[in-house]
């Protein structure tokens, strides 16, 4: 057990180092000039001297390995650096934004898992009927639709036309922080969570459906049917455990989305989150912010996959990873 944990911790550390290196390399290979990205639309007003000043101020004129080394040693000391775009400490930015969207992402993640699984199961149990067809079309449509569109549609339908939900933000507009209630926050969270949940359904649903179809064709299921087991019994006794794996894999593989996947919510619902900031960091060459995001993201991915593997063993004892017949 201790060995197992040690192994995992070692993996985590190597992963963190590798992912920082990879991101840093990618950023440095990108043709984006961070200074130009920083200056943006004001480029006409900034002369070449000022350009050089900006570069020097942010340390952008130093050679690559020096920059990475400086960043690396700073991180080890606990200094995550200052973001160029926001001009504030990276930890602060990540803290504010990620925490704000955590409840949203968790809800959406759970919802898409449960709903996707249910759809997949429903489609497979009723394979060939119109239910199956509708679900399949539904999933394919979701996969082929730009999620931004879908989000906008939800916004227009539920918040504008029906008026059931607020039009955006995580808190009511114009209300001071201490006056915002929990029910306010929930009210603002529901529509984005629902939207994100629905858009995330397609993968889980279709893979689960496929798996269950296979399971239903197996001999033991045939035998169980011959014995007169009802559909529901079939599902409970033979189906669920066997089909859990793809669903679990997919769900926990998208664990990292919890951290940075809120771009849609931010764009359409103006819900606070880290997604857009992360993309901006990548686009504008903001090394400290991007690397900070990447490290946390890696932690989430790692945690997610570890959970998935532990669940594998729990659900299907055949998967004892230690045993190798080969």
């Amino acid at each position, binding site marked *: 057990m201790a060995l197992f944990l040690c192994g995992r911790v070692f*993996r985590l550390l*190597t*992963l963190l180092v590798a*992912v920082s290196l*990879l*991101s840093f390399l*990618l*950023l440095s*290979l*990108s*043709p*984006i000039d961070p200074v130009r990205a920083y200056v943006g639309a004001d480029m006409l007003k900034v002369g070449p001297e000022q350009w050089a000043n900006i570069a020097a101020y942010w340390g952008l004129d130093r050679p690559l390995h020096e920059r990475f080394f400086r960043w690396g040693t700073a991180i080890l000391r606990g200094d995550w650096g200052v973001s160029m775009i926001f001009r504030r400490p990276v930890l602060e930015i990540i803290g504010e934004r990620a925490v704000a969207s955590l409840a949203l992402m968790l809800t959406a993640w759970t919802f898409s898992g449960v709903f996707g699984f249910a759809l997949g199961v429903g489609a497979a149990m009723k394979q060939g*009927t119109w239910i*199956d067809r509708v679900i399949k079309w539904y999933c*394919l449509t979701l*996969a*082929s*639709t*730009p999620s*931004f*569109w879908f989000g*906008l549609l939800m916004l*227009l339908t539920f918040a504008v036309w029906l008026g059931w939900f607020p039009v955006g933000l995580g808190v009511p507009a114009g209300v001071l922080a201490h006056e915002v209630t929990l029910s306010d926050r929930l009210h603002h969270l529901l529509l984005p969570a629902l939207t994100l949940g629905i858009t995330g359904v*397609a*993968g889980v649903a*279709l*893979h689960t459906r*496929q798996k269950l*179809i*296979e399971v239903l*064709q197996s001999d033991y299921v045939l035998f169980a049917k011959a014995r007169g087991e009802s559909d529901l019994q079939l599902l409970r006794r033979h189906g669920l455990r066997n089909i859990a*794996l*793809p669903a*679990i*894999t*997919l769900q926990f*593989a*998208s664990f*990292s989305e919890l*951290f*940075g*996947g809120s771009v849609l919510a931010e764009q359409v619902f103006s819900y606070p989150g880290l*997604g857009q900031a*992360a*993309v901006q960091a*990548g686009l504008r060459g903001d090394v400290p912010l*991007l690397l900070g995001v*990447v490290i946390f*993201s*890696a932690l989430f*991915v*790692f945690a997610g*996959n570890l959970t*998935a593997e532990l669940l594998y063993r729990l659900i299907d004892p*055949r*998967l004892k*990873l230690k045993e*190798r*017949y*080969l």
Partner: protein
Amino acid sequence: MSDTQSLPIANRRFSRLHINRRQRTVIVIALAAVFLLSLLVGAQLLDEAGLSTSLTERNLPPALAHPFGTDWLGRDMLVRTVKGLSLSLTIGLFAAVPSVLIALVLALASGLGNKHLDAAITWLADLFLAVPHLVLIILIAFVFGGGTTGVIAGVTLTHWPTLTRLLRAEVLQLRSAEFVLVSLRFGRSRWWVATRHLLPHLKPQLLVGFILLFPHAILHEAAVTFLGFGLSPHRPAIGIILSESMRYLSAGSWWLAFFPGLALLIMVRTFDVLGDNLRLLIDPRSAQE
């Protein structure tokens, strides 16, 4: 209509035509192939002139002269949609197929190989999953110099990890099945086991993975193009067309989004149908039904 079990009603209807199931499958495959081919050919035949702007005919709803309407620059949406579909078809294929293949190979290696290989591959998958997906696509596209190559590289390299993990889980489950163990005891090589025993079982999930990845690639292409690193934005690709039309959705020009979106959906469904039916033909269990 493409699944291994079918409704009695469907059989009844087709049996009236005296086509058996196998023939039906072949016909469906042929139709699907024809549809896709005609897209490609049609796009070539359609004149570039259809793409020119016409400032006096902007934002026209669908009518006889312009069956799919016109966009905000007066360009005919039918021409744009067909050309866009054909372009996206190629991009989608070039991005989705390699990604799926990489996932397959790595999953097999991971599941069948020794402990260290498995650890290495899953570690690599974690590495690629760790960077936020959109950012990674963009950065990789940059490295490859943008354009179609950049987009394809970006999408291919970011989407294999999830599918790999999924297929690996399948392989792990199958690995302990009796027929596999027996083959191995009999001395068959792992490669043989992989192709003969495991691959058929993985094909359904592979297909699902492909079907989901294909439109995903097309939609991502638009994002990269908007940053100037994909195709030139006035070459129509469905992803671009859809993204640009989003702005006009709020303004009420629904046809800008509806027809291209529907076209994409039909194309995806066509692949789905094609894949299922091919599998029906090839898979020995269902081929003789």
